[in-house]
């Protein structure tokens, strides 16, 4: 058989997603500079909020504001960011449990180096100048020790 043919193929879609009242409220909060979770019947605060309690499947309706800083519960250092990553210099992905929350959220941490990252460290939100109601209204988290 002759040389196999190949061609580049770009798969590109923009999905328009409705948010519903729970995710919509969280994203609205981000736009307004506020982070909210939901408190389940058992008293657990889920951040980011989900529509149904994963333990009982009951609808979640009780919103609570949580802190804008918290603790890294696990992390990974990315020395060579990929094209689609939101930060272009080396950074960390982390699961972050905000003050007042019982679950952790995924986000990125802009730290000066891998040695600055540690499970248990405190990080705080860096807000975007212009916010629209999107998870990247939080540009990233940064070590709380820095100012």
């Amino acid at each position: 058989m002759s040389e196999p043919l190949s061609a580049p193929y770009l798969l590109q879609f923009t999905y328009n997603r409705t948010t519903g009242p729970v995710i919509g409220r969280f994203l609205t909060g981000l736009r307004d500079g506020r982070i909210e979770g939901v408190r389940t019947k058992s008293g657990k605060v889920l951040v980011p909020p989900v529509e149904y309690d994963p333990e009982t499947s009951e609808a979640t309706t009780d919103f609570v504001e949580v802190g804008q800083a918290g603790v890294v519960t696990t992390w990974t250092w990315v020395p060579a960011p990929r094209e689609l990553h939101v930060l272009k210099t080396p950074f960390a992905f982390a699961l972050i449990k905000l003050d007042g929350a019982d679950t952790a959220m995924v986000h990125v941490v802009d730290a000066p180096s891998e040695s600055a990252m540690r499970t248990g460290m405190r990080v705080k939100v860096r807000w975007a100048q212009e916010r629209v109601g999107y998870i990247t209204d939080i540009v990233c988290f940064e070590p709380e020790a820095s100012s």
Partner: protein
Amino acid sequence: MSQPIAIVSVAQLPSIRRDRTRDEAEMVQPIVTEAMQKIGLKQADIGFTCSGSSDYLVGRPFSFVAAVDGLVTWPPIRESHVEMDGAWALFEALIRLRHGDIDTALVFAFGKSSLGPIPDVMNVQNDPYYVQPLNLDSFSQAALQARAMIDAGKATERDFAEIVVRNRRNAKSNPNAQVKGDFDVEAILAEKTISSPIRKSFSPPLSDSCVAVVLASGDKAKKLVKRPAWIRGIDHRIEPYSLGVRDLTQSVSTRIAAEKVGVNAKKNDIAEIHTPFAHQEILIKEALGLDSSVVVNPSGGALAANPIMATGLIRFIEAATRIHAGEANRAIVHATSGVTMQQNLVAVLEGE
């Protein structure tokens, strides 16, 4: 009470880094034909056909429909598909056989991981509101779990490297494995990290392959082969979707599925477990409660070959092959779905 169901025939395309010459139909046709011909069957003899694959993996909506072009579909056949690993296609075929009106099923799965930017493709499985816009690639996602295990004192990076060495050494005797040989723990630890602590060697290879299995029930299975690999139990469980809600250092879903099928009701000879990242082997062995006498991944496992969407079905194939050959009598098979193993399937296979 429904008839027992067995794997009676298997076929695999060797996993390779990049298959430039076969489209979906050209991967499927020789493999399903081989699996059926080995036991003297044709498509017309098959009661139900089910496949596992992912359109997003190959960037082609309805790629699974193109795969059906590899089958004899006239006259029309009973066919189904899951956008999941073929292990779940096997589960669906088994359920269908339990209706009792048919006694054979053909299951196949294929994965062409060579076509797309896999670490970014896997992000499309993530929550579109909260996670996808951050592009949590598969290396980084797996790394969050690996670090959590280190922090919990469950493992070290050296343990991960030793798992890689052991699996790829086992793969030397597997003609269908892609990455095989004697590798060095120190050399692996010296690799630069992609998403710490994940290094290239801690990760599965990118592989292209297609594999198939024929299932048969009761007397039909006994007529077709001397030593069917009976599926004595099968169960699967799923955990919550959100990463921050799960304990990434334990596989609760695997533990429950393992209890339901009675993994440790009898002595096991081998276990084929679907753990694409090295650290995941520790999690799954713990959840299955295997003791040290069980040989884990004699085939080399997912670290030796990972045609995504077929890797789990390959675990069934590798276990069944050894049972058919009389090299093992009881095998535990595990398959997973999701970068951090959100969903897990466990089965027990036995010779007589």
